[in-house]
């Protein structure tokens, strides 16, 4: 008993925090998988939210606190809410039968799904191959930096090096706001 205790304590615990990011990563992947697989749209969106939260935590675990909080604020606070609202606003009404009988054939839909899944799987395999087996994968990676991004540095960077993109983003966001409002507005029946 005592030995076991000693052994557990002797484990390289100081290395452990480095790998703690696997926890949010796991949650994120589970959430994403559920978001993709579930039938109920609301459940999908909720799992997506979970995945986003985990992604934000993952960012923080990797040292990018600011990005993590921005991720939480934007995705959980706004995008997830938007998706939920959109789901509620677009009830899946009775799908009118298409003229083409083949289109409604279950088999063709299943076939399409299988095709998509195959493609996704192929992409995954090739990506993983590229990550682990390409010559570049054997290249020397610089050690993980104690990467801390102070908020002040980010702010200064935003207003110095990336001022133009910042302005462009501001305009884009304004345009998106107006555009979304216009698009979603009920058209007046003339």
């Amino acid at each position, binding site marked *: 008993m005592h030995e076991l205790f000693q052994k557990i304590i002797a484990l390289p615990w100081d290395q452990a925090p480095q790998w703690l990011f696997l926890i949010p990563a796991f949650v994120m992947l589970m959430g994403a998988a559920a978001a993709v697989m579930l039938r109920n749209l609301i459940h999908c969106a909720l799992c997506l939210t979970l995945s986003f939260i985990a992604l934000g935590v993952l960012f923080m675990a990797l040292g*990018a606190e600011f990005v993590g909080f921005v991720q939480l604020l934007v995705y959980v606070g706004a995008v997830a809410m938007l998706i939920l609202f959109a789901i509620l606003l677009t009830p899946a*009404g009775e799908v009118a039968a298409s003229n083409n009988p083949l289109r409604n054939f279950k088999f063709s839909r299943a076939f399409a799904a299988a095709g998509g899944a195959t493609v996704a799987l192929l992409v995954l395999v090739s990506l993983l191959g590229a990550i682990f087996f390409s010559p570049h994968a054997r290249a020397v990676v*610089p050690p993980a930096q104690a*990467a801390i991004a102070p908020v002040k540095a980010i702010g200064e960077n935003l207003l110095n090096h990336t001022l133009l993109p910042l302005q462009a*983003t501001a305009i884009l*966001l304004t345009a998106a706001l107006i555009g979304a409002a216009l698009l979603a507005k009920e*058209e007046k029946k003339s």
Partner: protein
Amino acid sequence: MMLQVILAISAVLFCFGLLATLTRSNAIMVLIGIELMLGAGNLNFIAFWKFSTHPELLTGIMFAIFSIALAAAEAAVGLAIVIQVHRRLRSVNVNRATQLKG
């Protein structure tokens, strides 16, 4: 090793997004897939930033911040379009919105 693990996680997340985009016929699900893929992209930015030789330049961070802002705009406009499509076609099935085909 750690960088590759993060990249692998990101790749898996990307493929989940791709899967949703490819197989689900609901436009909102397609958008969800796109959001997941964007998240995977952001994860890559952060990972490469963490393992870069000059993290103090904050390039990855900046990319991720702008990417998030753009994703928010994209989501807003995309969902507005979905709502408008639903209003026109009484359906959010992406396979029905084919009026623009040649």
